[in-house]
């Protein structure tokens, strides 16, 4: 059942959230913000993205510049050093940054959603000042440590343990696949405090990096997003003060799941940026490359591909915006966020694939960015919840709606 209301601003809402007709034109502030991120991506990231990928270089200077622009802490209130904007703005920013460089978009997304996100939502005022404010400027980035060698999708089976000893927590275990690990100055990490309570016995902790008892495994050599560092976090009697627990004891799993819900919108946005970059590359090539006496854009085979790519990106984008707007309106958005991430990541891999096809041989060589988009896109179907998990989440929410 839909209830439509008209707001003084001229926008209408359906069931309380801004209707899709207002998605036809974003609010002025959002348009300006999107433009400034696009300008930055075009001028500062696009020209170096190939080099960052080839040499596996963390874009430290660019991250600092993005921090100065407020992009590393978009939702954080100004009082804590952030930009004080909403999640729709965040989604737009990540998409534009990712369009310039998929790796940099990933760093922005992880810092905003996975590291700052849970602290903003579940931290005490003191924790926010200590663990968020220094991470708003781009000087420091954070990471999120949930996955382990033995469990990714099976997050409830956390085998990393935390025991209390006097005024300290002592952590032991290994975390795997941690993005930003080698470049981070802190982590939000999940460990079991009460094994008997199963997933209700997991708690979240804040650990500075570097720190005695915390060491990093080797940097993974990845297919894509190569400018980001991915490695194991190894905890051997890593001691942190009691005050470093985030949220209440046993609420770790809930914190992780809620964080990933929002993080999904970030990754969807990253995937959109990569997909759009792939589409831009293919469409531009279709204008310029001639074969059979005319630009290949005149051939229906190429036109159909471009049309399919454009539809995939635009529909995923609307899903992503809707999820962000629902979150901003404080409405439930779990199903929509999962739908956005699923659609956007599959759009990214589809566009990456088809873009190489449109470019033919040129798509296969590193002279053109198409192969990098293809490689960067692939991870978006895996991290922050595999496409399979997204389908389970969507089905779960859907079936709940139909339950009598």
């Amino acid at each position, binding site marked *: 059942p839909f209830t439509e209301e008209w707001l003084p601003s001229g926008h209408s809402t359906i069931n309380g959230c801004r209707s899709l007709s207002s998605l036809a034109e974003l609010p*002025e*502030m959002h348009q*300006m*913000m999107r*433009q*400034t991120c696009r*300008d*930055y991506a075009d001028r500062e990231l696009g020209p170096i993205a190939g080099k960052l990928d080839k040499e596996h270089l963390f874009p430290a200077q660019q991250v600092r*510049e993005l921090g*100065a*622009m*407020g*992009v590393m802490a*978009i939702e954080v209130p*100004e009082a804590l050093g952030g*930009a*004080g*904007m909403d999640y729709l*703005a965040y989604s737009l*920013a990540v998409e534009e940054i990712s369009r310039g460089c998929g790796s940099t978009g990933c760093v922005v997304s992880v810092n905003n959603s996975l590291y700052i996100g849970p602290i903003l939502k579940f931290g005490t005022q003191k924790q926010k000042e200590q663990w968020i404010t220094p991470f708003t400027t781009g000087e420091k980035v954070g990471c999120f440590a949930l996955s382990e060698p033995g469990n990714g999708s099976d997050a409830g089976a956390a085998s990393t343990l935390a025991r209390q000893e006097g005024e300290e927590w002592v952590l032991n275990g290994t975390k795997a696949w941690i993005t930003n690990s080698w470049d981070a100055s802190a982590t939000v990490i999940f460990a079991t405090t009460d094994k008997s309570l199963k997933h209700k016995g997991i708690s979240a902790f804040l650990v500075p990096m570097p720190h005695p008892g915390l060491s990093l495994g080797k940097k993974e050599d990845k297919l894509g997003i190569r400018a980001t560092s991915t490695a194991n976090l190894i905890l051997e009697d890593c001691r942190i003060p009691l005050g470093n627990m985030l949220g209440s004891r046993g609420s770790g799993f809930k914190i992780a799941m809620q964080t990933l819900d929002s993080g999904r919108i970030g990754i969807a946005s990253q995937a959109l940026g990569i997909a759009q970059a792939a589409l831009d590359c293919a469409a531009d090539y279709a204008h310029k490359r001639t074969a059979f006496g005319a630009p290949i854009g005149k051939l229906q085979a190429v036109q159909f591909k471009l049309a399919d790519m454009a539809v995939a990106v635009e529909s995923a984008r609307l899903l992503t915006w809707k999820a962000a707007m629902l979150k901003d309106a404080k409405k439930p958005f779990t199903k929509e966020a999962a739908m956005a991430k699923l659609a956007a990541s599959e759009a990214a891999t589809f566009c990456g694939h088809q873009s190489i096809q449109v470019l033919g041989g040129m798509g296969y060589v590193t002279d053109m960015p198409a192969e990098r988009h293809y490689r960067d896109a692939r991870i978006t179907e895996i991290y922050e919840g595999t496409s399979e998990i997204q389908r389970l989440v969507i089905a779960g929410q859907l079936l709940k709606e139909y339950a009598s």
Partner: protein
Amino acid sequence: MSPASVFVCLSLTLLSDYPVIRVKPDNSGVVTDGVKHSMNPFCEIAVEEAVKLKEKKFIKEVVAVSCGPTQVTETIRTALAMGCDRGIHVEVSGKDYEAMGPLQIAKIFAALAKKEEASLVILGKQAIDDDCNQTGQMTAALLDWPQGTFASEVTIDGEKVKVVREIDGGLETIKISMPAVLTADLRLNTPRYATLPNIMKAKKKKIANMKPADLGVDMVSRVEVLRVDEPPTRLAGVKVETVDDLVAKLKANGTI
């Protein structure tokens, strides 16, 4: 007495790297419908310089001004997001906007600068769509103020401004008294990106609205555009094998 307010005068231009600019079928001008517009790059440099002067505390207030249809408020808003304090939108639309040229704009800017008692008027040296390079100079003449054009370096020294100008022969340094008009050249500075917090702050800054008539300016153009044509299509050249062939061909067609 330190200068109070600086006016930065902005121009909204056709985006220079837009794929194709087309001449209208009736040869009266170029097609602007649906073509992306944005702030003139030299005006961005002018905004940056004004904001920098304010950050160095040489001036108290930066006002961003632009003439044109509703669209120019976006340009003013961008200038506010870069750090200007308030904006003024002088509304010019329809036939008046199509006929608007440097002289009309200079009259408007001069009237505003006098009305608001500006100490400095900074503009981009020229707009990248018409390349006129006249507005700054005309504004200075109408106000009878000194001008420092093609500035690549600006330093405020008490009541005077030291301007390093890029000229054909190299660099010329002049010292002029305020109030004065400056125009920004490419190497004056690198404009900043609007930060997200400043975009949020820009929302609350005021943009005043007025019409040329409010300033007593008549918008009648003294220039009539007779015709706009595309540059002639480049004809195919001829390849020659030797230098002797080249000289013979040049002699044959009367070039030498």
